[in-house]
């Protein structure tokens, strides 16, 4: 009888060995995957009450900090002392609704590595620092607040970049919300009511939404024209009151319903400064979808931009537009299916300011350890060249003329040479979406920005890029350059 018992024993111990293999599989091999599964709430739950690192602005203002919980000395609570102007960039760290913004993107740096387990002892023994790291954002707190205030009652976004590096100087989306409401036990209810709010305060209009760029897209068409040598500043075009789209009964008119110049001919410079749709539709069709696509893609269209989080792809449908000249004509003035985030449009202004070189935008410059030592320093990353230096220079002249004598006059700042381009894209119902992109000072640009307004009753039916967005840009140039 011992024979079969021995064989059964072998079978049973094989089963136990399978159990050992099973625990090893789940607790070693697949442990990280299971721990980080988005459906596993343990990670977020365990962060609750733990100390997190600081987020500070480039001018030393604290944007997020952990302080001791007054009701429970063992716990910490998160504070966002600068309020809602900073929420879309800084984000939130909520045990109920998760993390957002830089709080999410830099969670691995900001979170405490103190787990209160035996591994802490091992780590301390090995001399590892368990305290959370801190993060320095590239934004300037004054400019950020100024941008939020300048938007007034409007819905929209402002993105300001340092054209020399791609560093974000301000990144605002409005309306916003106070991140601290997401920290309490009622966070889920607050989240639901923010989701239900018709003004959509949770929506990050600056980096997570794509919009038709309107006439600001003419900068890309112009750059293509200059680069290919197809038409220069003085090249003249026919100047009709309306431009007949080929193969279509539709026409394109200018914003003021009149001819661009004298009804006979107009130069490219005049068309750009006055933002004439008729001539730009014509020019776009002459250039062709492919050549414009080359410039657009060099500026990051149709590809993922690795900002602190991946921003939605800007759209220029080269192949489709090559088949459809009518659609191409409309796309040349930033309508139809052309789309980009406000952050992306700021990148375009920055590229022109920077002699045609494009930088990947970034919002964190340094990571510090708890003693203030630098753990990581983020270096600017050049994506490539989008246009020749000469083209950028000519385009700059044209953009400066927009501000001195064209549609962007309200963007002017006394004593400063400002360059820019306005736009008013089709928006919701009777409302247009005003845009302004530009940079200053022209001879040595230190700021490039995009202002986007989502047309509502607050901006009004007559609102355009020149009347609503340009004054906001003027304010911000002034704040930045008079620091």
């Amino acid at each position, binding site marked *: *009888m011992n024979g079969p018992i021995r064989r059964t024993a072998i079978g049973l111990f094989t*089963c*136990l060995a399978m159990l050992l293999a099973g625990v090893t599989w789940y607790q070693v091999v697949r442990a990280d995957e*299971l721990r980080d599964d988005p459906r*596993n*709430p*343990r990670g977020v*739950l365990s962060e609750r009450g733990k100390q997190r690192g600081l987020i500070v602005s480039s001018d030393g203002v604290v944007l997020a900090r952990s302080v001791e919980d007054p009701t429970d000395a063992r716990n910490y609570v998160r504070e966002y002392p600068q309020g809602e102007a900073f929420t879309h960039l800084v984000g939130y760290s909520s045990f109920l609704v998760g993390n957002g913004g830089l709080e999410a993107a830099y969670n691995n740096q900001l979170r405490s590595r103190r*787990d209160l387990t035996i591994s802490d002892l091992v780590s301390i023994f090995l001399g590892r620092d368990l305290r959370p790291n801190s993060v320095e954002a590239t934004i300037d707190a004054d400019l950020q607040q100024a941008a939020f205030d300048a938007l007034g009652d409007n819905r929209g976004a402002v993105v300001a970049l340092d054209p020399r590096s791609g560093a974000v100087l301000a990144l605002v989306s409005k309306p916003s919300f106070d991140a601290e409401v997401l920290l309490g036990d009622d966070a889920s209810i607050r989240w639901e009511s923010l989701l239900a709010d018709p003004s959509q305060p949770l929506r990050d209009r600056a980096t997570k939404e794509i919009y038709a760029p309107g006439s600001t897209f003419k900068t890309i068409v112009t750059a293509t024209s200059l680069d290919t040598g197809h038409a220069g500043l003085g090249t003249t075009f026919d100047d009709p009151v309306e431009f007949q789209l080929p193969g279509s009964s539709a026409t394109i008119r200018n914003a003021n319903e009149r001819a661009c110049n004298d009804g006979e001919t107009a130069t490219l410079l005049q068309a750009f400064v006055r933002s004439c749709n008729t001539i730009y539709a014509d020019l776009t069709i002459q250039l062709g979808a492919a050549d414009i696509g080359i410039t657009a893609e060099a500026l990051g269209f149709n590809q993922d931009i690795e900002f602190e989080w991946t921003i939605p792809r800007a759209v220029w449908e080269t192949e489709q537009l090559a088949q459809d000249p009518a659609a191409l004509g409309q796309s040349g003035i930033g309508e139809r299916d052309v789309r980009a985030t406000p952050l992306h449009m700021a990148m375009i202004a920055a590229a022109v300011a920077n002699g045609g070189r494009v930088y990947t935008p970034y919002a964190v410059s340094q990571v510090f350890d708890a003693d203030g030592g630098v753990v990581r320093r983020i270096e600017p990353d050049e994506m490539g060249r989008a246009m020749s230096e000469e083209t950028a220079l000519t385009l700059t002249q044209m953009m400066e003329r927009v501000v001195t004598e064209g549609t962007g006059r309200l963007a002017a700042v006394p004593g400063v040479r400002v360059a820019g381009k306005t736009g008013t894209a089709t928006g919701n119902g009777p409302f247009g979406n005003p845009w302004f992109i530009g940079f200053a000072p022209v001879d040595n640009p230190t700021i490039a920005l995009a202002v986007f307004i989502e047309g509502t009753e607050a901006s009004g039916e007559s609102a355009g890029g020149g009347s609503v967005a340009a004054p906001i840009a003027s304010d911000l140039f002034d704040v930045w350059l008079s620091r």
Partner: protein
Amino acid sequence: MSRNVEGATIVAASLLAAFAVALVNFSRGETVDAQVGLTFLVFVLAFGGLFVAVNRLAPKATPLLLPPIVALVGLGFFQIYRLDPDRAGLQRWWVVIAAAVAVVALVLLARGTTSSLRRYRNLLLIVSVGLLLLPNLPTDWSFPLKGLEVNGSRLWIVLDTGTPFRMQFQPAELAKLGLVIYFAGYLADHQKALREAFRKIGPIRIPEPRQLIPLVLAWGGSILILVWQRDLGASLLLFAGFVLLLYAATGSSGYLLTGGLMTVTGAAAAAYLFDHVQRRMTAWLQPFENYQDEGFQIAQGLFALGTGSLSGAGPGLGRPDLIPNAETDFIFAAIGEELGLAGTVAIIALFALLISVGLGLSFRSRDTFRKLLAAGLTFVLAVQVFLIVGGVLRIVPLTGITLPFMSYGGSALVGNMVLVALLLRISHEESS
């Protein structure tokens, strides 16, 4: 290992339980309270008492059985305390009761020998079947003993006298032992016939149809449990235990093969016919695809194990409360989250030690009945551990059975402590 070392190890294992409870207090920021001392006291008194009883009633028994059991009960208790302190308070009483019942069992066994059980086996069969049927008593009659359905399975009886004293019990946990004793007695008597009654058809040996009757009866009984009480675990456990014992007694792999085929057929038919078995199959095969319903429990168990990783979150610092039924079916995953791979490997090793000791007893027994009884008890223990831990680890479908010595629940603990008393007594008799 001498008796003194055994006693010291029992005290050490009791300290382990108390220390784990203290860590739970500490990590929750509570003051380390009377629970710690109480836990230590209860463990030392209950298992110390059992230890003393073993010294008197089965002095030659192996000293290797009690210490791992105290450690397993202690680890289980700390996790129950961490999940639900109120239930831990009840479980503490059950530890005392189970140890006391084990002492009583030793006293009764010491009046004769375990071999006397062989004579009572038909009585035990009737009692066991009666116990198994008890949960099918009506729930709504006036008699104080009522059947009870919990989570769709009918495996509880409740003693409800109308006074605040109310007691629930899972009779299958005791019936399990009675049936193993019956099987061992029956097989000891008939092993020769069962072994030799084979008909040769070419190279294949086929059992005589008449000799398959016990196998078919056991199978039918298991199917009845599955249908009437929807208790997949007990059904599978009893049948697997019986088939393994039949193989051990006869050495005929034909029984193993036939039993295996019957299990697969039964399981396939059950999965096809019964909704509750179907749901368990879905949960087993695709827990993450069905995360919102059937798969939730298994997925949470795996999240717990994965998050626990090597060293675990620490006592009281994980979130095993997120797993449904963490203190019963999923206590293994709960401990895996807080004590990590270190804890789960330790538990498997402790069970491996128990199983080796049990099989060693069987191996060295000279008396056929005792040999088969020790083997049968160990098989049932081993199969139960494999079914529930394997269920948590997705090696087999989850059957909803308790983890011996660790899960919350009095009847299981009492039943398993009686199982230990039987093994201890067999060990003593074989060394005498």
